[in-house]
């Protein structure tokens, strides 16, 4: 055993310790399961299957004993409960899917399993990934380990908590309008949403199909790169929107200075664009201060800062909240109480069965979004809302292309505030939607985006620096995040008691 305990190790360290037989996958899985149960009050996990986890770990140990080496072999991970996973309930944080047993694995789950990763359990999230606080989970909120009276963000809230509280070295998340980047920001975690279409959506319980994208969350950009290299890649027969781009090694630029740069200034030549709309009155001063300090660090690494504009940033809110609920209302029409999911116990006829089953199975925010989506897609309103929003979506995406003529990466806060108190904004949907302002533009454009721990704001709460790259520039984004993490230690800070 090395001097570090298992839960203190990130992915690379733990994989090395397992490969060098300083510990085993079984020992690591046992330690992390024990720790997850010890911290059950954080609400990070929704389910475990200890026998299956240990069987997977044993199989990984056998592969190692046979001489196999690979970066995730034997490493225990956990999945957001949006990914269907055989052997575990797959609930999407909804009563509608309580106890649902999927007959197949999501492609992302299958790829990580084939690489030898071990599944610790399923992670809490907002119901059907709709929310930014994890308070919309039917199974109770998750708590932010930096202040357990506060939300961890969402919708990948349980994912962020598991990484921040050292209950798993890395996890999967999904991001439709910021659901990886915002909880990563609230919990001092590193997370990346790749270009739309990079990761297969097969087996990701659908929320908004033209926006949903999977990505990793971990303690460092380097660990995220390792996971993403396994998760991404074309899935031609199973996801019609999966991009036919070859799989990449996203670790290839880590620790490598940019072309023409030096080891002392590895990011020399990198132009970082700062959208003025991200640094205005709408952003809390403590968040701006932490982000500005991180940007100064980037200047020391050789980057230059360029003022840019994303003029339709505010417009992203209505555009997103038309498109996403429209697609959600269509996707969630499959929950009719017939083939799977909740069915009401008492009903008069078929229509009554549909209505009662859906009203009992879906929580308030999901029902709200179904109502919005149904209305904007209904006869006579489609052009005024959905089509109009898709036209604006193109303009928003074009704004980014104009901006990328002046810079290589765009940076700003991931969220306008740090984590808020549990219960705040609970019954105010519009207030919740407005809080997504900085993550929605890149989501609508389908661009890769990250949140990187940037320091702390008032009350010692974490602040995330959002980095947005152009299409397919994940490796360069991870290089920029990794260079920052080699020069700083914000990402290594652990909440007290964990």
């Amino acid at each position: 055993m090395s001097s570090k305990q298992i839960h203190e190790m990130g992915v690379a360290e733990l994989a090395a310790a397992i490969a060098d037989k300083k510990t085993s996958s079984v020992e690591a899985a046992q330690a992390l399961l024990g720790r997850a149960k010890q911290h059950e009050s954080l609400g990070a996990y929704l389910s475990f299957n200890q026998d299956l986890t240990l069987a997977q770990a044993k199989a990984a140990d056998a592969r190692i004993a046979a001489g196999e080496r690979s970066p995730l072999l034997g490493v225990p991970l956990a999945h957001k409960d949006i990914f269907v996973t055989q052997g575990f309930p797959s609930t999407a944080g909804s009563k509608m899917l309580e106890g649902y047993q999927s007959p197949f694995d999501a492609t992302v789950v299958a790829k990580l399993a084939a690489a030898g990763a071990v599944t610790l359990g399923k992670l809490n999230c907002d119901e059907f990934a709709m929310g930014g606080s994890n308070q919309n989970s039917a199974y109770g909120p998750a708590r932010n380990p930096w202040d357990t009276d506060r939300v961890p963000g969402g919708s990948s809230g349980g994912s962020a908590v598991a990484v921040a509280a050292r209950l798993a070295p890395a996890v999967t998340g999904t991001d439709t309008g910021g659901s990886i980047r915002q909880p990563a920001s609230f919990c001092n975690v590193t997370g990346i949403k790749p270009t739309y279409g990079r990761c297969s959506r097969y087996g990701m319980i659908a929320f908004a199909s033209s926006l949903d994208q999977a990505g990793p969350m971990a303690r460092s950009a380097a660990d995220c790169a390792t996971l993403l290299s396994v998760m991404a890649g074309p899935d031609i027969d199973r996801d019609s929107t999966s991009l036919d781009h070859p799989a990449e090694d996203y670790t290839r630029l880590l620790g490598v200075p940019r072309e023409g740069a030096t080891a002392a200034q590895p990011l020399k030549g990198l132009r970082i664009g700062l959208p003025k709309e991200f640094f205005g009155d709408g952003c809390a001063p403590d968040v701006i201060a932490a982000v500005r300090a991180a940007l100064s660090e980037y200047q020391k690494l050789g980057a230059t800062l360029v003022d840019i504009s994303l003029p339709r940033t505010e417009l992203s809110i209505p555009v997103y909240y038309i498109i996403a609920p429209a697609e959600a209302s269509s996707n969630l029409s499959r929950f009719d109480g017939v083939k799977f999911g909740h069915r009401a116990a008492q009903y008069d006829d078929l229509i009554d069965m549909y209505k009662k089953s859906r009203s009992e199975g879906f929580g308030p925010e999901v029902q709200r979004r179904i109502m919005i989506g149904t209305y904007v897609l209904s006869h006579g309103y489609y052009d005024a809302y959905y089509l109009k929003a898709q036209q604006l979506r193109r303009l928003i995406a074009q704004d980014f292309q104009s901006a990328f003529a002046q810079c290589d990466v765009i940076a700003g806060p991931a969220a306008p505030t740090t984590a808020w108190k549990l219960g705040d904004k609970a019954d105010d949907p519009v207030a919740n939607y407005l809080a997504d302002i900085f993550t929605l533009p890149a989501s609508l454009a389908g661009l890769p985006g990250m949140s990187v721990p940037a320091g702390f704001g008032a009350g010692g709460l974490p602040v995330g620096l959002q980095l947005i790259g152009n299409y397919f520039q994940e490796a360069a984004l991870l290089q920029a995040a990794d260079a920052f993490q080699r020069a700083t230690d914000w990402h290594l800070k652990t909440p007290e008691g964990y």
Partner: protein
Amino acid sequence: MSLNLSDIGRIAHLARLEMPPELAERLLPQLNGFFDLVEQMNAVDTTGVEPLAHPTAVIDHVSLRLRPDVASEPNNREANQRSAPAVERGLFLVPKVIE
């Protein structure tokens, strides 16, 4: 333009959701508050702008693939019906639809 209670009832029926009066009363101002926010979309002239469905289509042509129309999945009826609310002899049970 704002919604009224009878709109809420109509939309709920289309969405196959139950809408008791007290819920409709609570939902109405929330949805109208949301659609106030949406109003700003109308201020932008989008004449001639092509709607964007797949985001990377902004830089490159994206076409949705078709695959050959052949069965690609094995018969997996038992596993597929394991989470069904009501099944009898391999069939999904629904309430009587035709009198």
